[in-house]
């Protein structure tokens, strides 16, 4: 398998505080990797660098040519009064005037994420799991080859967690989407992910998920 991402000597400093340095790793196409680490070790910072929302202090990274990335950030501003329906929310990532092709693409992603039956429910009234699947559906509209999810299961109940993880597994197996899943939930990662990246003590380790023995200190 060829690599989809190569990270070289990446380092990030804010003022005088070093978040991490000497971060080196490669991800293979079609892999399913958990990015683990305690809170505050820079997992989201690393993702923001990969998404070009932050500029690293040092080092470089390269995605394989013509890779299309989907990114589901950790936080969203969706309160209980949020008016848009799930379908309209997912469709924000599409042209305003929706052709039949766009409509079909939205419908397909709603189907894929098991949201078609409740597509007219307002996002503000949707459950945590439904919202999270809608975020995923919105990112999937770009037909990504790789998807990055930041703490997608953090606020979900066990049933919703399993449903979301099942969905991610399905996307990886059936659609060959490379997955980078940021979490601090080690048991969940052991159950669904194959590889791990462990960010702690200012640097990163990589390995097979079932061999993971993080100290989490």
């Amino acid at each position, binding site marked *: 398998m060829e690599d989809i991402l190569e990270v070289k000597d990446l380092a990030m400093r804010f003022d005088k505080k070093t978040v991490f340095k000497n971060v080196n790793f490669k991800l293979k196409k079609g892999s399913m990797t958990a990015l683990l680490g305690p809170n505050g070790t820079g997992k989201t910072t690393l993702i923001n660098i990969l998404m070009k929302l932050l500029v690293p202090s040092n080092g470089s990274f390269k995605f394989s040519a013509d890779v299309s990335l989907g990114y589901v*950030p950790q936080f*969203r501003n969706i309160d209980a009064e949020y*008016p848009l329906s799930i379908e*309209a*929310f997912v469709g*924000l*990532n599409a042209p*305003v005037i929706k052709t039949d092709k766009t409509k079909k693409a939205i419908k397909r992603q709603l189907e894929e994420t098991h949201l078609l039956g409740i597509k*007219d429910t307002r996002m503000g009234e949707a459950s945590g799991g439904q919202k999270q699947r809608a975020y995923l559906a919105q990112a999937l509209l770009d037909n990504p080859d790789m998807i990055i999810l930041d703490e997608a299961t953090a606020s979900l109940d066990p049933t919703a967690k399993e449903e979301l993880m099942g969905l991610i597994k399905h996307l990886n197996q059936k659609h060959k989407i490379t997955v980078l899943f940021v979490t601090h939930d080690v048991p969940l990662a052991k159950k669904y992910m194959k590889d791990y990246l462990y960010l702690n003590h200012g640097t990163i380790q990589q390995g097979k998920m079932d061999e993971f023995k993080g100290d989490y200190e």
Partner: protein
Amino acid sequence: MFAYGFMRNAFLASTFIAITCGAVGVYVVARNFSFLAHTLSEIGFAGAAFAVWLGIAPLWGMLIFTLLGSISVGELSMHSDQKESAISAISALFIGLGVLFLAISGANSNYATNILFGSIIGVDKQGVIHLVVLSIIVLLLIFAIQRPLNFDSFDHIGALAHGVKSGLVGVIFLIALAMSVSIGAQIVGSLLVFILLTLPPATACYIGRTIPTMIAWSVFFALIGVWAGLYLGFITNLPVTFFIAVIEVAIYLITYFVHVVRHNL
């Protein structure tokens, strides 16, 4: 009623104002800019007073001031943690300036009342043409940036994650908002123009579930308000703005009440 030229002008002008404010307002509410819209109204008042002092039409003074004001408030609130305080400070400064310009221009209090509370006889034929042209420019601006504006207004974080140029969209929207405030103020007055920019869209949020339906409902409620307000103002000789305010508030409260009852049953 339409036998009078000034009523025909007022109806035509307020129809375009309602369409513009109704559409722009949906984004004002989605972006949580209600307080900013309110502040821009006050900045508009200062601009109008400035224009009176210079001896030009109030509309142009309002346009200049609201454009400058919206960009500076927008910048300030983007970089400051104390967004509300920053807006309050600017608002205070501009109301002060407005009072000053009115005082030194020697305009009578009647004129000040017209600026603050609007006037149906305030718009002549040329004024109508200006308002219609400006309204069309605002609508075209909004239409030109529809896709990123929708994404950024209704899902700011998602838009950033998808590489939408949020800053540029924000600036263009502030320009459109400043223009909407200036044109809206010509009928309902600078003190109450934020009504048309916040209440119809806030009501529409309870009904519509997609952006086009929300815009349609918002424009509809804005039109009901200005048309009924003009009609009632004409037959009772009481201020149009009073009726517009009461109608919009009533529609909002009724919709809100129905929404609450539905969700608690």
